[in-house]
């Protein structure tokens, strides 16, 4: 599938230690209803499986990783190494409740961004607007400002 056949492909899954499937399945349904092709790797997906899916689908618009059980940081520990090895090159969007304990404090968000996570979303309804924004930024060939603010 080439980028210009208009097919918008997304790689979706839940982080390695997390088995929460509800949001994952609802997001897959939602994106498919919006016309996206969704490769849903399901719950408990190690980062290496996401990387393999990226290799298989180089034109994926983004990798969406959900995490609710508060272990996002441990589950994404390999991201810097994978990125250094030239893999998982497309934007990585992480969503859900990304840290153990109360609200996700900025310090915990900072830890994830430091790993190389490109965007953090608290709410699934923000996914499609973000994907549209990233695509338009790519199309104007402007180098996308490394914008890691929470949408």
């Amino acid at each position, binding site marked *: 599938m080439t980028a210009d056949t208009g097919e918008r492909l997304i790689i979706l899954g839940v982080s390695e*230690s*997390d*088995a*929460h*499937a*509800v949001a994952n*399945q*609802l997001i897959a*349904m*939602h994106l498919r*209803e919006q016309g996206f092709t969704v490769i849903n790797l*399901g*719950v*408990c*997906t190690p980062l290496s499986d996401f990387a393999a899916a990226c290799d298989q689908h180089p034109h994926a618009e983004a990798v969406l990783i959900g995490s609710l*059980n*508060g*272990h996002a*940081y*441990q589950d994404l520990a390999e991201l810097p190494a994978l990125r250094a090895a030239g893999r998982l090159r497309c934007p990585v969007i992480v969503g859900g*409740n990304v*840290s*153990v*304990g*109360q*609200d996700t404090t900025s310090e915990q968000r900072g830890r994830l961004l430091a790993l190389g996570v490109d965007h953090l979303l608290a709410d699934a309804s923000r996914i499609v607007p973000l994907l549209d924004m990233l695509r338009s930024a790519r199309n104007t060939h402007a180098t996308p400002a490394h914008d890691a603010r929470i949408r």
Partner: protein
Amino acid sequence: MLSSRLKATLPRWEQIMEGLREPGPHIVDVLRMADATGRPAVQPRCGVGDHREMLRLLEELGTTGADVLTVTVDSHTRLGQYATAQRLLRDSPDDLNGYPLVTHGWRRGRELRGRVPHPLQVRHGSPDARDLFAIALASGVTAFEGGGIGYNLPYSKDVPLKTTLGSWQRIDAVCGALAKDGVLVDRELFGTLSAVLMPPSISLAITLLEAAAAAREGVRCVSPAYPQSGEMHQDIAALRAIRMLGRRYLGTDVEVFPVLHEFMGPFPRTPQYANFLIMYGGLTARLGRASKVVSKTAKESYGIPDAAANAEGILNTILGTSDLLDFVRVDEDRVAEEESWILQEVGELVEPLFSGEDLLGGVVEAFQTGRLDIPFSASVHAHSDVVPARDRGGAVRYADPGALPFSSATRSRHARQLSARTGAARRTTSLIERITRDINYFLDKERTVLPAIDERPLP
């Protein structure tokens, strides 16, 4: 059955039996007392990584009036990642979302057991819990949660049901042996499953099958757990149906203690409303004559509750079960009707399996063909074709029963109950919006019941 490395750390069997025979109150005493008084036992969920903090947490919650206390095991330990659990315990225990029981070992387990006068229960979610079970027994704990289906499909991605049913069969066999020696292990069965919009007949059918399998191994005490839907008549009917199904399919030599898990869906943010729902869960448990209710905390939607939030959850649950609400009556005809529907649906799901000889094989095959299924399965070994939906009154019905072998009478009843929903809601909204709204049932009520006040920093 156990890895040799782990076996080496365990005490001799006689020592374990001695620990199990220490004076109670044992879990079965508490559950029988609850049935006798008509007041459900109250149990919080609690589990932190550090051992001393766990001791303090149990002690504090022990003073709140809770009848049973919990050791919730962390995600890594439940998946057998003992090295990761050990590393986190050493470096950053706060990053553990539960108590790493295997890493801490049975001696520390006994210390937890001995520190509070209440029976402890180990809650986890492991597909293969034999290590955890061994250490729990060695720690003197005789309340253990889990089953071959309930601790597979909602928690694990790709573990064959044959494997988990097999590993839990061995655990149940040990319980059978212990029962012969007069030690009753209470086996709680996780009917909550994926915990979101779970149709009662699926929850009750699956825990009934797990209970039947356990009984065949000699288990004499089961606690089928049911997740509160939030519609009072349906919840009362489901709790009553558990006792009826126990008598009908498990015979008289197995004690059946229905358990209510308070509403697991997303929780409201306003503290007063969250506390009200927690009290409401306690009331549901008492009206449904549950033996036990597992309480929530107002912090549910944020993360792991701290001791104070947990204590508040326990107090509010106890208030819901208190005699102050003994005046409450319900529409008995409506409850009886809901119960009759549940009993009919469970019959249609389980009777084909009870008639076959190989119960466990039949269950595996049924999940492969969708004749057994759950909504939102984490595991690839269930179709997840079942789509639930709330009717106008808030009760959970089948919007799509998938390949479940329901009679046409059952199917048309659910269709009729859902068609009565306000036309607008059904037509315009997408499936995800409608399901999310049903999941957020209590959140939306918060907006209509309480005005849109910001989250006020109330005392």
